[in-house]
């Protein structure tokens, strides 16, 4: 299947940072009501790479995304996003940094009192972009997620999958340098899931956007590790087996608040850890 043309295709969002990493977690811990959710988490997300985050429900995957965004503060440790230390920034300083990051929430978190186009345009309107430019970019983003026809609709009129795609359109409309996806395919049918995986892949391969993707669906992450987006064909294509190591895709597995695996698809497949074998089987 194919997806429509990209918004502002000439623009490539990936920005190299001195460290070469888009996100760095250094010994980050957080507890809620004395329950430790993340315990000394450390990992790095290289620029232009997509990292899939796995873990059982309640393992702190969504918390990790919110920490990266500075929406909640860790009890200890450092988080660096796009070269800025999130854990030392004030809320006001964070608002600027967040302008360079896009996030897709688990339940989409669309503003239900605003129309679809207003949701997508929210950040652009806040940045006082000219109305004509806003309309052009909103239409492009909606076309990217194949939802142009929903322009004037309210979120309550859309299906779950459509809402998720509008959330993606809202996240990418400002061409962010980093994207955070919280279960983008959760609870969706296989066809819609594939469409969304393809959209995420397109962001990775064409825009070179760095991304953290929380997911429960291993097959989505494996599809992303074994396919690439072909710009000419405008669809994803399978990569021959010998070349799969070149795909900027990695996996991170959380268990009991700790990272038990951080590596690529081949390392994951070769892992002898019982829990990991059981998880991926």
């Amino acid at each position, binding site marked *: 299947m194919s997806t429509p043309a990209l918004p502002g295709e000439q623009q490539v969002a990936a920005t190299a940072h001195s460290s070469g990493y888009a996100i760095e977690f250094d010994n980050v811990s957080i507890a809620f009501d004395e329950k430790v959710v993340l315990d000394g988490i450390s990992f790095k997300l290289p620029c232009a790479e997509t990292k899939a985050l796995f873990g059982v429900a309640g393992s702190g995957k969504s918390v990790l995304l919110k920490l990266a965004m500075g*929406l909640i503060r860790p009890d200890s440790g450092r988080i660096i996003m796009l070269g800025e230390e999130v854990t030392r920034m004030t809320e*006001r300083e964070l608002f600027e940094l*967040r302008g360079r990051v896009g996030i897709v*929430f688990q339940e989409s978190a669309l503003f*239900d009192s605003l129309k679809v186009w207003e949701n997508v345009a929210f950040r652009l309107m806040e940045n006082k972009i000219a109305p004509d430019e806003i309309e052009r970019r909103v239409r492009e983003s909606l076309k990217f997620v194949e939802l142009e026809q929903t322009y004037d609709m309210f979120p309550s009129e859309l299906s779950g999958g459509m809402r998720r795609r509008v959330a993606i359109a*809202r996240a990418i409309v400002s061409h962010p340098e980093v994207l955070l996806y919280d279960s983008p395919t959760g609870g969706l049918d296989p066809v819609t899931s594939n469409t969304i995986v393809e959209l995420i892949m397109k962001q990775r391969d064409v825009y070179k956007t760095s991304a953290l993707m929380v997911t429960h669906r291993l097959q989505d992450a494996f599809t992303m590790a074994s396919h690439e987006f072909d710009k000419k064909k405008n669809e994803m294509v399978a990569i021959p087996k010998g070349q799969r190591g070149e795909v900027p895709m990695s996996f991170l597995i959380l268990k009991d608040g700790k990272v038990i695996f951080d590596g690529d698809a081949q390392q994951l497949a070769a892992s002898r850890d019982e829990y990991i074998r059981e998880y991926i089987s």
Partner: protein
Amino acid sequence: MALELELTSPIDVAKNAVASVQDYVRLSAQSVGNFFRPPIYMGDMLQQADLIGFGSLPIVILTGLSVGALLALNSASTLQRFGGITLIGQLVSLGMVTELGPLITGLMVAGRNASGMASELGSMIVTEQIDAMRALGTDPSKKLITPRVGATAFMLFFLTIIADLLGLVGGWAVAHLLFGLDTNQYWTSAWQILVFRDVFTGLVKPVLFGFIISTVGCYYGMSTTGGTQGVGRSTTQAVVASSVLILIVDFFVTKLIFAVFGVR
């Protein structure tokens, strides 16, 4: 399902109460401070002014008229016994302008709008819309709270003036139609009894009440936890807390004004 009761130590209860007050004060201070830090969301403020001000107009008209009429009706029989029915205009005027107008309008708007704010913001919290707003680089305090605080304080001022006037109209209707008091006499006595202190009292209170209604409504909305049930709880708490706070503040403001201007 077994019902488990958890014992909480009095120290924890006290700590939570202090933390809540601290959060409320911080939210209130931030909402005022935002007026001096751009961006100012004038469009949102106008929208809220429309919702709060014009939306509350019917209920304010109704209560203003009723309270003025009831005040006249209840006091008329006593005044008549002492041959003082002509004083009814003064009584309604003083009662409405200094006390009942601001208080009743405040309580009505608290019931209507503190609940509305708490439920709207609470729903946004539980559906992660507030987090989404922060993630999109917008300060919810500036975008959602400050416009509500500004609009409520501003509109309650005018709503109270309307309630005062309608209260006087209600009082006149009773005095004139039921007790045969001359219209001119009623309005002249109602007008002449008022001095600067009375009008000042009557116009300062609604601004304070508007601030209380909006900050309490927003505070309970923004601190909502526990899904839709939590939204319901926040809504109820917002109405109760803002109403109680209005009554307490009303007492102390009245005392303060008496202390500054002296008792009549």
